[in-house]
């Protein structure tokens, strides 16, 4: 059991032991860094490749069809075929495009998506870098992708692209605020930004989702996370039926694939971070720790795909109203509930915090009720 749990950690130690036999100390340190970096640099893109297949399969099942099933058994080689296709496609740059911006955006947008993998605790002792600001590092990096989406939109010199870019910026600015506020309860309780200490604080089945503020915080963080990665029902920046493909309309070949890659890697990292913050990270009985994180992350990803197969797209005013009038006040009230939960003693605090959360949800739901036009009464001439 212990062996399987620590299999990746032991593998790294075995490599380092082998190297330290005949190499100087500083080379061993470099190798130690390189092993982690290589593992992440391979894990990120491979996750993305197979997420595309999983998404197509899942959506296919929801829509009562098979999904890709021609390339390899169950279509397992489909991502590789797609990759080859992307690489051999012609790279088209529109004549009036801003060449510099058009080139730069897809290249840079992958970097923050890949860097976030560094702070995810994949298992016991399996965090690449235990930064003291782990969660903040994630929030900061995920906020930078907005600029590059907008640079891509502007650089394409295309009306649909620009519309998509503007929608993206408006959406991300709005959803970033409730997103940051929705993790504050976790930081309050744990007292640290480090992803490793957040997971440690949830040991022994005390996952934060089992507390009143935890449920609300989890839902807030997950929903705003879905909005941050532009997935349905928040996919206005690339709404196919309205603005072609939004900010990546003018991209083809590998540049398009890079946008796709950033999006899917972000979808994975957001799921993993939500699982870390609220679902106990790699904590769990019986199974090895890294498998637990994967199960939780992939469960959340499947929920995202389920959303995509089920929900229609938001209208712009609904999108903004949801963020500013519902999520933001709820996030603030949730911080208050978490504060009360910390201050009071064990059985009472659940009740009080639960009451605060329940009352605030009811009030916000009531206050956000859309205006229904009054029922018309007709007066007929012949009466």
């Amino acid at each position, binding site marked *: 059991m212990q062996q399987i749990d620590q299999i990746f950690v032991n593998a790294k130690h075995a490599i380092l032991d082998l190297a330290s036999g005949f190499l*100087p*100390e*500083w080379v061993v*340190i470099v190798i130690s860094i390189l092993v982690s970096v290589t593992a992440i640099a391979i894990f990120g893109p491979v996750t993305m490749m197979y997420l595309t297949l999983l998404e197509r399969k899942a959506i296919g099942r929801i829509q009562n069809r098979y999904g890709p099933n021609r390339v390899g058994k169950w279509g397992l080689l489909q991502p590789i075929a797609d990759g080859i296709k992307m690489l051999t496609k012609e790279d088209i740059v529109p004549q009036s495009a*801003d060449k*510099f*911006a058009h080139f*730069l955006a897809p290249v840079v947008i992958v970097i923050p998506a890949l860097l976030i993998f560094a702070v995810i605790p994949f298992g016991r002792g399996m965090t690449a870098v235990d*930064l*003291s*600001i782990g969660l*903040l*590092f994630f*929030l*900061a*990096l995920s*906020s*930078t992708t*907005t*600029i590059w989406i*907008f*640079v891509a939109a*502007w650089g394409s010199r295309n009306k649909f692209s620009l519309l998509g870019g*503007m929608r993206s*910026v408006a959406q*991300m*600015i709005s959803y*970033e605020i409730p997103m940051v506020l929705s993790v504050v309860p976790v930081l309050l309780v744990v*007292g640290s*930004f480090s992803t490793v200490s957040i997971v440690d604080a949830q040991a022994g089945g005390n996952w934060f989702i089992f507390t009143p503020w935890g449920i609300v915080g989890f839902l807030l963080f997950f929903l705003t996370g879905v909005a941050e990665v532009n997935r349905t029902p928040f996919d206005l920046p690339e709404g196919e039926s309205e603005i072609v493909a939004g900010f990546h309309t003018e991209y083809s070949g590998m540049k398009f694939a890079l946008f796709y890659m950033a999006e899917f890697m972000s979808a994975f990292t957001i799921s993993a971070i939500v699982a870390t913050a609220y679902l106990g990270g790699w904590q769990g009985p019986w199974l090895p720790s890294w498998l637990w994180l994967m199960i939780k992350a992939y469960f959340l990803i499947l929920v995202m795909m389920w959303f995509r197969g089920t929900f229609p797209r938001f209208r712009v005013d609904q999108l903004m109203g949801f963020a500013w009038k519902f999520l933001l006040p709820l996030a603030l009230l949730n911080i208050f509930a978490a504060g009360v939960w910390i201050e009071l003693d064990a059985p009472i605090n659940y009740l009080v915090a639960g009451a605060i959360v329940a009352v605030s949800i009811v009030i916000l739901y009531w206050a956000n009720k859309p205006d229904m036009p009054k029922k018309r009464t007709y007066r007929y001439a012949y009466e």
Partner: protein
Amino acid sequence: MDAFAPLATFALYGLMLGILATAVVTVTVRNLFHAAIFLAFTLLGVAILYFFLHADFIAAIQILLYVGAIMTLVIFAIMLTSRMSDPSVPQSNRQRIPALVVTGIVGVFLILAILKTPWIVSGTLQTTNAVALGKALMGQFVLPFEVISLVLLVALIGAIVTARSDQ
């Protein structure tokens, strides 16, 4: 770790050179949009510099606020500018001589101030963590903190009043 000391120094100077280079490009490049992109790189470079100096929290806040929020605002402002990439728009105007004099005076005083300041290096590394920062903001500096939040609230209400459509 001693083997890394020269490497770290080399990387630090390379980073500083990169920050300066992108800053110079920011003010010299013709296309306003490209200038904004290079400004984003400059701010990112400063954030990496903070990481180097073990000021992790400030680095993350620098990225979150400057690169994430303020750059988005700058790009929005640029988007509303007409003729932003027109090469026939001159980069300087008739006030360049007075501007040079004023900035020159300010620069001289800044350099003098920098030279006169005794840069005390404390022996131990002061780790400024978020907890200490939060306690300082809520304790010692509570009045400036509240005043700033009031100013921001006024700005928010002002923006809403300005943007509200007339009925």
